[in-house]
């Protein structure tokens, strides 16, 4: 045992100030998901564009990103080299999981990309338009099953908002949560559920192939290249964007914050990032500074209201 202590004392004495990588990005999800892909894309673009010499990505999966967020907030305070990727899903997860750490405990830098929700039905469905779907929902909310992602996530929230706007009790929606977009898509294609809701990218190739019918998009205005009305056009005031952002550690000085913001702006404006957005099919919804802060606050309060309405948050 003596050697044990000797070794640890020796090691402690050797503890030098860390010569860390330029940036360490926490992807608060498993490899393969949207946040992981965002983090790894940032990694390769930052390195390729010379914004940072060495970027490491670390996966801290769990509970809609709240585990990664909590770890990030507590362990990286004041560290200007630490970043975390996050998004709208985190807003809902913080509320449903009663997470002790919220987005107020980190330093949001900028929104990078976003995706709008698409509402689809199988090609052979009798429902031809968003109007038909809303009619059916009003008649018998239980008979309209919605296939989408995890409970309390963006898809679930959007369905709740639609029901509310249509005057249907949001607690009465028959929302079937699937793990991951793939499984939901299979259920929709197989006509296991009445309608499907998820990010447009999940459905894009099926819509183009004609196996799914796109009824509406959750954007504020029609999106060029997507042949579908917005939910708003149908008279329901619902706009949902599933955005992804990058945040820095809490407790940074103003200079540090400015430096990180500058690097992120350089990233977002770079040719390499634009190229990445194109290959991945992501939309550039870059928003930084006070405008982003304001938008974030608005999203948080709207989400809290609807989650209470659905009955997921007490």
């Amino acid at each position, binding site marked *: *045992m003596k*050697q*044990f202590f000797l*070794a*640890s004392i020796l*090691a*402690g004495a*050797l*503890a*030098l100030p*860390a*010569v860390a990588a330029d940036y360490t990005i926490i992807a608060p999800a498993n490899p393969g998901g949207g946040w992981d892909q965002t983090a790894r894309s940032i990694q390769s673009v930052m390195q390729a564009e010379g914004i940072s010499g060495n970027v*490491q*990505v*670390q*996966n801290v999966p769990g509970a809609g990103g709240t585990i990664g967020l909590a770890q990030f907030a507590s362990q990286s305070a004041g560290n200007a080299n630490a970043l975390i990727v996050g998004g709208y899903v985190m807003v809902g997860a913080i509320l449903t999981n009663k997470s002790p750490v919220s987005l107020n405990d980190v330093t949001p830098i900028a929104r990078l990309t976003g995706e709008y929700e698409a509402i689809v039905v199988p090609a052979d469905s009798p429902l031809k338009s968003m109007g038909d779907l809303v009619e059916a929902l009003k008649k018998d909310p*239980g008979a309209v099953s919605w296939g989408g992602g995890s409970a309390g996530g963006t898809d679930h929230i959007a369905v709740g908002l639609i029901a509310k706007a249509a005057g249907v009790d949001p607690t009465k929606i*028959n929302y079937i949560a699937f793990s991951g977009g793939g499984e939901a898509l299979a259920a929709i294609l197989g006509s296991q559920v009445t309608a499907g809701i998820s990010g447009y990218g999940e459905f894009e190739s099926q819509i183009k192939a004609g196996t799914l019918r796109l009824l509406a998009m959750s954007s504020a205005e029609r999106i060029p290249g997507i042949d579908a009305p917005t939910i708003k056009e149908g008279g329901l005031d619902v706009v949902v964007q599933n955005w992804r952002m990058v945040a820095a550690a809490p407790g940074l000085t103003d200079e540090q914050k400015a430096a990180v913001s500058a690097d992120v702006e350089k990233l977002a404006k770079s040719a390499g990032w634009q190229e990445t957005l194109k290959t991945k099919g992501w939309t550039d919804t870059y928003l930084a500074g006070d405008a982003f802060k304001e938008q974030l606050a608005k999203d948080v309060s709207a989400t809290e209201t609807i989650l209470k309405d659905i009955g997921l948050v007490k």
Partner: protein
Amino acid sequence: MSKGNTPSTQTRRPDRAALVIAVFLAALAGLIFWDTSRLAQITSYSGIGPATIPFVIASVLLLLAAWTVFEALRGDFPARERQEFGPVIWIIGGLAAQMLTLKPLGFSIATGLLFAATAAGFGKRKLWFTIPIGIVLCLGVWLVFAGLLQLSLPAGPLEHLFW
């Protein structure tokens, strides 16, 4: 949890360790009932809520506990090998040491301690020899997996000398 020190029971008499297992199963069932009962009123169109399946599982665990008591009283459990607890404590201690030192001291030192403790559990007790060997070995592993293959393994003072 383990009452493994019971000597081999060849004769058919109540098996006390097995009774402890039954208590453990029943306690587990109770824990499930207690935790999920607050979710019992949530149901959806399915008619089964988040508490239904846990209730079923907990009920079966209670049945299994009763069955275990029955077999324990009949002495139906198989004979057990004699267990030596010294080695077990060495290894558990090594794992605990690794867990506690991983963040402050980095992967190589923490895992080197585990390495030495495990070797000690299997009879190599010369720690002045095995700890350095373990640390050097783990440093090599760290260099390959964290350095070359980009696996994120916590770095400590030793690793920072190289990277």
